[in-house]
């Protein structure tokens, strides 16, 4: 977008939207939208409170554990599926089913099996992230250049060596792509888990704010959450672009 010959930076329109928000808030059109300035003031106030910090900490912990589990289980499984045809044919239908299934429906099952706590939320996060990670790792292995595999064989690489020295690295760009999408899904998963289980993290905080009609508090937390989610997704996209060179060159 150029204005009067001046190139406007990509996300500058958000300033316009922020002004619009402030205006709507000031005009007192609706109780649910307080002015942005008020939200920002509240944001600064609640950031250092123990309630907010513990919610953030619990969420980060569940998120990180969930993503770690998804990556540690998903990447090797995906590579194995790419290598072994029988395993692939047995598992691929299920991976595809869970990739498109409405996983929210499974949260009640997790609740009755694993209790109303951290463990259920971690598993929800893993369930949201893992399928795309498996699928991408598998796709990464399937597109490996055949001559690379033959090179390893001709130099007498053991299966173990071939796995860690060839397959993993050759499939790395796809694997990272899968991890990026998986992590974005995990952010949504951890919030959905907390909303439904709603005794820990931001779920509990939302409950508290909405029963007390603390609108500014609510929006402040939403802004933090959305900004964090967006920052994570941009950071990962940036990292992915940095390895893109090596995908292009092979």
């Amino acid at each position, binding site marked *: 977008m150029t204005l009067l010959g001046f190139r406007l930076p990509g996300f500058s*329109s958000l300033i316009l939207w922020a002004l619009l928000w402030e205006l709507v808030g000031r005009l007192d059109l609706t109780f649910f939208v307080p002015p942005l300035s008020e939200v920002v003031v509240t944001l600064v106030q609640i950031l250092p409170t123990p309630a907010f910090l513990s919610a953030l900490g619990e969420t980060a912990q569940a998120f990180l554990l969930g993503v770690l589990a998804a990556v540690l289980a998903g990447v090797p499984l995906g590579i194995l599926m790419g290598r072994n045809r029988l395993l692939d*044919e047995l598992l691929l239908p299920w991976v595809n089913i869970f990739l498109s299934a*409405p996983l929210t429906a*499974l949260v009640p099952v997790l609740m*009755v099996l694993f209790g109303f706590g951290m463990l259920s939320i971690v598993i929800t996060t893993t369930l949201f992230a893992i399928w795309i990670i498996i699928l991408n790792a598998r796709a990464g292995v399937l597109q490996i250049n055949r001559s690379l595999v033959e090179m390893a064989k001709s130099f007498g690489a053991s299966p173990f060596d071939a796995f860690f020295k060839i397959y993993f690295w050759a499939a790395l760009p796809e694997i990272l792509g899968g991890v990026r999408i998986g992590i974005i899904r995990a952010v949504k998963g951890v919030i959905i888990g907390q909303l439904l289980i709603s005794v820990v993290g931001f779920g509990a905080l939302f409950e508290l704010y909405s029963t007390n009609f603390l609108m500014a508090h609510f929006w402040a937390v939403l802004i933090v959450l959305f900004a964090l989610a967006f920052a994570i997704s941009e950071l990962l996209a940036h990292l992915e672009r940095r390895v893109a060179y090596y995908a292009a060159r092979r």
Partner: protein
Amino acid sequence: MNRSLLLKLLSAAIVFGAWEIAGRVPVSYAFPTFLDSMTALFAMSIDGTLLRAYGETLRPLVAGIAISALLGIVIGLWIGLSEFCDWLFSPIFIVMQAAPLAALIPLLVMAYGIGLTSKVFVVCIMAMPVIVLNTASAVRNTPSSLKEMGRSFLGSDFDIVTRIILPSASPIIFSGLRLGISAGFIGAILAELKITPTGVGDIITYSRSIADYPSMYAAIFSIILLAVLFLNLLERLEGQLFAGNNRGYVSD
């Protein structure tokens, strides 16, 4: 019988068998066997409980998807065509795509109550971003030689949009719709579990509260099955509809 189908059946047998065994052990008091769950599913299908429940569940889903599709394609088309609109709206939808929008639900409930409106809204916020972003990028990426062709043969702007850009973008718009519907399912169930238990969400919540686990598992099984079958159907339809569409630009 071919190998692929045989292995699919084998795979299903292994998973459902494991479910049955785990239920018989039992691994948890809240883990019914596969057969018990299927019996409950059968019973609910016969007495019409399931049919009535889906009547409830599908209403916000269909309404939400319809609104998202219409609005999403129009906004996406506009973003793809106009640089100003791209500047104005793209950031919003890019942030929405990355953000956990489910967090808006408590706010929607406060603003619109616990009725149908809130649920339709939930489906919309989940489904719309991907529809908008897919449409916009498909429109933006229309091969420039096709647009030049339209102009050089004296097509009006309207002709170029309706006869070149939209048909050329339709495969990607369609897959955006499919992803939107997938997200819409997540939203619809989330709404029923979080806002007010109705439809399938009601069966899940109610049977959990009276510890009728087979019915609870049966309801969850049915909604996942429905979503997966429907999305698969759409994917096949997509393959059929646009078989030749992505080929044939440059000699290949």
